[in-house]
């Protein structure tokens, strides 16, 4: 009984205190009004990254060398001044880490110098060069995991991805040039999907303003190997293969999502046709119509005697 009584009294006095216009109440109330938005703002911004850096997407079939390229570019500046601690763990002379099949995307923050002649190995701080920071995003190349990478490219990017999609500056498509079989099957099909996703970006937006151009670099990797095809040959093979793919796809069955009533309304011409509609031969030049520039450059991540990755690096630095 007594306890209840005292509790009630306490409540009563508390209510009275809060409702009487005293300076303490004013101060506390004012503080709440002023601070609450600030605290909320902090809570909100802490969860989201403070700035969104321009992004470069690394795509390509599994085993082409995407993750190896990523690690090489990241570790490049470090290897120029050899630290004693890293000497034991890195087995080979090059600084790319050993890699295996990726399951999740990984991103790395890199700085591209404004002076294009600088190699990726240059320590920019020491050289005193001005640089732009960007994110290099590695995506898994396994067939089951490509949907995530493609959704970053396409116009169908959901609301969360919109921000990152608008910051997408370039796409690097890594290919294994020493393996002509996967190059012309798996690699070409993936490249077809990537280019088609980029093509669909144009004209998909609500505004008439075209989305910013996203150039594509086809990086023919592993050129240090004897069996590797040179970049020009990779280019012609891919173009031939893409032409074949687009021909068979146009003749293939309709997708399951096409309902019976939509059948009569003929599908929009050239909806899924990559490049110039109706043309017999495909060339990467046709993609320019859709603001997609495609370059094919050779290089090698591992091994010695090849052209290395310097050309790719300057290409990336150029597009940032």
């Amino acid at each position: 009984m007594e306890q209840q009584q005292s509790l009630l009294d306490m409540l009563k006095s508390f209510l009275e205190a809060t409702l009487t216009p005293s300076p303490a109440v004013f101060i506390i109330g004012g503080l709440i009004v002023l601070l609450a938005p600030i605290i909320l703002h902090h809570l909100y911004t802490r969860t989201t990254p403070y700035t969104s850096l321009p992004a470069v997407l690394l795509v390509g079939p599994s085993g082409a060398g995407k993750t190896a390229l990523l690690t090489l570019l990241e570790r490049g500046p470090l290897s120029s001044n050899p630290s004693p601690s890293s000497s034991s763990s890195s087995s080979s002379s090059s600084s790319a880490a050993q890699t295996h099949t990726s399951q999740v995307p990984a991103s790395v923050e890199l700085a591209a110098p404004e002076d294009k002649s600088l190699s990726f190995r240059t320590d920019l701080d020491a050289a005193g060069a001005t640089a732009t920071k960007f994110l290099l995003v590695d995506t898994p190349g396994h067939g089951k995991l490509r949907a995530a990478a493609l959704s970053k490219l396409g116009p169908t990017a959901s609301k969360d991805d919109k921000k990152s999609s608008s910051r997408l500056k370039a796409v690097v498509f890594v290919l294994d040039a020493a393996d002509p079989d996967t190059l012309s099957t798996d690699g070409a099909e993936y490249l077809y999907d990537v280019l088609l996703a980029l093509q669909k970006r144009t004209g998909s937006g609500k505004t008439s303003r075209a989305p910013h151009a996203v150039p594509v670099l086809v990086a023919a990797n592993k050129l240090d190997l004897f069996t590797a095809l040179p970049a020009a040959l990779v280019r012609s093979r891919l173009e031939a293969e893409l032409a074949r793919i687009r021909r068979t796809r146009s003749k293939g069955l309709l997708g399951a999502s096409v309902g019976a009533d939509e059948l009569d309304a003929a599908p929009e011409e050239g909806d899924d046709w990559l490049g110039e509609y109706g043309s017999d031969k495909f060339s990467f030049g046709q993609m320019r119509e859709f603001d997609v520039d495609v370059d094919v450059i050779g290089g090698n991540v591992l091994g010695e005697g090849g052209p290395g990755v310097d050309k790719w690096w300057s290409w990336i630095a150029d597009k940032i």
Partner: protein
Amino acid sequence: MLDSFEILTTSGVVLWSRSYSSVSPSVINSFITDVFIEEKNKVSGAKENQSAAVNPPYKHDQHTLRWTFVKELGVIFVAVYRSLLHLSWVEKLVDNIKTIFVNLYGDQLTKPNTTIVECAEFDKYFDQQLQELESSGAKITYGSSDLRSRGADAEEQASGNFGEKPPSPALIHRRIPELDTIADEDSVASGLSPNISRPTTPATRPDGPRGAKVSRRARRVQNTASAHASSGDESPRHKKAAAKGPKKGRKWDDDGNATEEDGVQLDYSAKGLTSDSEAEVGRSTALEEVDDATWGSRSKGKFVLRDLGDEVHSILASAEQSKPSTTSPSSTGLVGSSLKTIGGLFRNVVGGKTLTKEDLDKAMKGMEEHLLKKNVAREAAVRLCAGVETELVGVKTASFESINARIQSAMEASLTKMLTPTSSLDLLREIDSVVSPPPTSLRKPRPYVMSIVGVNGVGKSTNLSKICFFLLQNKYKVLIAAGDTFRSGAVEQLAVHVRNLKELTAREGGRVELYQKGYGKDAATVAKDAVGFAAAEGYDVVLIDTAGRRHNDQRLMSSLEKFAKFARPDKILMVGEALVGTDSVAQAKNFNAAFGAGRGLDGFIISKCDTVGDMVGTLVSLVHATNVPILFVGVGQHYSDLRSFSVKWAVEKLLSST
């Protein structure tokens, strides 16, 4: 011993590795693909933080992989060793390394936007653990009983290929004697004859030169108290009895006669694990003495190791301690808990809530119910939900995102991953590459062979003619082989289809013929003849119809293996009804297994999809059971009502709530 040990992230970067002999990177690549990406072995907990002992070992040509996975950090720990070695301490090593590594470098791993982890120092920790466990590993396995039983599993699974010597790694020099003895014992275990390993067998026996079996018979005879009177017709029965029962220990008395005794275990063949590990203990203690002797010369190295050992032990001990403390929930009065609930509700609306198992349980139940309503088989629904749940526990929701929305998106991703085929399924391109191969490939052009199997009445012939129509539109020359030589009217039914198709495509230039041999013939032979005929006549594609069969009828299913061997189809497609329910799992599994080793189904055709509306769960059940992709979807009665499967469409239908 150990071939290599690697610590790698889910993004594919190797953080730390040590190899003693060259292991092809394809071993670990295929391990990642099979276990993590395609989830072939159906480990429900492949994404959980289990210890290496619970995770089933992964085997890939001659190598066994023991692994564990830290989900929050996305780090995989893999130990690779030769399958013919039974290293019972490897699981312990993997677990300990995991604990140490996470303790030392865990904070470096959570940094965003980098793949570099400075862990060059880790070498000496690893060396310390390896030495410690190598020398005491046998004792550990002997001490805990559950570890031992797991060892038994591993031993049973290990195939007996003991003839080969592994390439000796750097550390092997001290271990070679042990290796030999292990190999010896294993050859015993593989059941040659227990007599080889018994040096106590007296060389000269009073009974004269007798083989092992004779002496066993003699002993038997002695036991039945009819001395030296073994009749010929009696002996086979005895032998059989002796072979059936567990082998007993034998003692040789002064006369040289064997007496049987229970209790002394000499039988290494089945459950000889106890004695095996006993032997190992004996050996390892002997080894320690040698170690101590050799260590005398390099006292400095020993000192450093001791120091490290203490640090490692303290890390392991603290990890051990923190384990039980996390499980007991802290009760902090009424005020604390009510504040927590209010905070939880607030966070549920605003987002940024860290999901726990309790939060998810109810929502997952709802999701499971939803999937079941969509006609997904229970087995598949449970597995999908378990996968999503383990994926989500410990994840923070994004701003202004509720739990249900998060689950929805996670389920969408997981369904997409499951249904997406590993390789592309462009049928026309495949046919082109077989029928007219590029001149560089040195392959001869030949007809592309497709066959269609399935349960009775699912629409095999109908879908076959639909595919035929599609191919004819693309101007291929198609031969249809009537492989259903059993059901009356089946050949005539195909003949009607062929007549219709001929009329339909006469203008477009396709050509189709029927190849039939009437009823009662062997279907496999008919199929083989049809392929030969097509090659001679220059057909592009051969479509083989087969008789419908119940998937649980062993007699009919067994003929499929012969069929696959004779006709050697490029693609074997199974037709499954969208109408069928839970039975679809068994159907798919049995058909997938029916073609013998190394050959399975290449794809599914789901018929009658127009009759089920949104309830397309059968798709998920089939893919769940077999990991075989879906090629086509039948959506109506006409020849043109065949659609290529689209993952997006299926996922949308499965998750739509009406």
